[in-house]
């Protein structure tokens, strides 16, 4: 126990020093910059307030992104330019084609499944008794890491050879229905869908909470007026509620799309990308940190980036429209 404290207390010392140092530097800069007056006051304030963020954004995101694009045209050790050879290899490799196909499945299925289920729950929950309890329980997986969620579901998908007792929930249910359980995580292409269920399990609560807030924001008099006009149930949803939450629905869908595209943790933890389950972001990590090919890894990162550009453009156009309305 003594050695535990002697190795871990200094870590907290580092935290205290880092935070104290951070605030001390900030206050000092504020104090010095605050001395400026007259015409210099504004530019100095702008540089002081915005400078740190801009430096970090440039050093951490913008310059590295440009470097990654350059690396994607270079060889494994980023020494010489090899043109589009990394991309050519990626697109002509059968394993990689499977990876792209899996990623397409992820970004087509999971965002829609998650957002639709979230909307369904939000509607069903609305004004229900004990609404907040149900919401909390459905939302809870959001606090659990994808790694933690993977452990939870690995337990559900556990399989034992027929001579041993089945302890996995899925195997037990399947057997009680009179079928023979299979080794779920090794069964292609079923395993990719089983991994998707983990994602859907984690993210549906997020979609539900946001869509639920949007539904509650629909003005009561609109709903009441249409109810008087005879719109109930499905028709009310189709013609009144859904059009009013459509923009939120699309925002949630786009968020899910980006999250599922970058998905890494679940695949890494459940299969390590084996058994035909790998996705782009897992391959990117493997290329760079397992096979030490910076060129191919960077090309995969660039492909991820190309996938998000439509969403990026859409988001910006949305924000601009909002700005002009406001």
């Amino acid at each position, binding site marked *: 126990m003594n050695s535990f404290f002697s190795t871990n207390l200094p870590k907290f010392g580092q935290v205290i020093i880092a935070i104290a140092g*951070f605030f001390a530097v900030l206050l000092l800069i504020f104090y010095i910059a605050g001395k400026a007056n007259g015409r210099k006051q504004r530019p100095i304030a702008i540089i002081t307030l*915005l400078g*740190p963020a801009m430096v970090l954004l440039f050093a951490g995101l913008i310059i590295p992104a440009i470097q990654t694009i350059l690396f994607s045209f270079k060889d494994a050790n980023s020494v010489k330019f090899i043109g589009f050879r990394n991309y050519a290899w990626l697109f002509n490799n059968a394993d990689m084609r499977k990876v792209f196909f899996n990623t397409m499945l992820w970004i087509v299925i999971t965002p829609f499944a998650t957002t639709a289920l979230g909307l369904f729950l939000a509607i069903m929950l609305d004004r229900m008794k004990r609404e907040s309890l149900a919401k909390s329980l459905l939302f809870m997986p959001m606090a659990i*890491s994808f*790694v933690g969620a993977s452990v939870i579901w690995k337990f559900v998908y556990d399989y034992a050879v027929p001579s041993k007792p089945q302890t996995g929930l899925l195997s037990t249910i399947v057997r009680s229905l009179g079928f023979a359980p299979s080794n779920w995580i090794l069964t292609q292409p079923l395993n990719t869908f089983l991994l998707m269920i983990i994602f859907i399990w984690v993210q549906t609560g997020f979609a539900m909470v946001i869509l639920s807030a949007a539904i509650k924001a629909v003005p009561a008099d609109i709903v009441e007026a249409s109810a008087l006009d005879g719109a109930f*149930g499905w028709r009310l949803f189709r013609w009144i509620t859904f059009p009013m939450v459509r923009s939120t629905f699309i925002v949630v869908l786009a968020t899910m799309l980006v999250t599922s595209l970058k998905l890494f943790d679940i695949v890494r933890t459940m299969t390590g990308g084996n058994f035909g389950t790998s996705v782009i972001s897992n391959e990117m990590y493997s290329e760079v940190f397992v096979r030490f090919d910076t060129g191919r890894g960077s090309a995969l*990162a660039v492909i991820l980036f190309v996938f998000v550009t439509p969403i990026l453009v859409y988001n910006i156009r949305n924000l601009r429209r909002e700005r002009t309305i406001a």
Partner: protein
Amino acid sequence: MSTVKIADANPGRKLFSTKFATSVVWIITVFWTVPTFGLFASSFRNKQDIFLSGWWNIFVAPNLTLGNYRAVLFGSSSSTLSDGVLPYLMNSIVITIPAVIFPVMIATMAAYCLAWVKFKGSDALFFFIFALQVVPIQMSLVPLLQLFTGGAHIGGVTIIPKLGIAGEFAGIWLPHTMFALPLAIYLLHNFIASLPRDLMEAAHVDGANHFKVFRQIVIPLSIPAIAAFAIFQFLWVWNDLLVALTFASGTEEVAPINVKLASLVGQWGSGWETLTAGAFVTIAIPLLVFFSLQRFFVRGLLAGSVK
């Protein structure tokens, strides 16, 4: 589904107010909760029980033990985990606290500047930062790691010397801070831009400079938004795997507990009993934060997505 009984209290307000809808919700809720509960129940069962029967047997033959937690926290010679995960749990705390405070402060400053100290191009800059939100962090990992280990050079001239923070806590705080900024600035800007103009102007008339306004007006009034983002960032950092795998070595000195848990899953022959308790130790703190601060967290999510 289309048969709707209008509740007397609020006519027409509810879309589907049947008992049917309520039962559907509860069936799904139970389905959503069972996997977590199964793991939780298993974490109190001993190795033989976990191996021989499903966790639902605790209802017929409860034979509960804290042995798994003891082994996971403090280590045991019989399990695959000889040293215990406590050092990794400490690392997670050590990584998370600054990785929340730094981006929150820096983003609040930037958001205030973009919202209230407008200059030529400040709107364009805000759009640009907003757009950075969706850029995959995969685009940054390799060059950033190279910067930390080797510095930056242009044509043999050293621009930035090697920072020597690879594999140190600073080398994890920094990427987390950088990656958090676009979302943080966007969320806080939305909030700070809506603060009352009169208040700002009155302070300036009284002779307060931007720093005084920032410290004495902007920060205190922005606490709800700051708290919402802080919780969001806390969960992000605590639950992150990719950044930690890239920038922290897997060792007891710096690796967070989530990395340790992931490596336990991958370990050949690592026992379920270690995994179950290990997973619960990993998710206990975020769950606690989540349930106690859920309202702030939801508010933060809504600010980001509905606006």
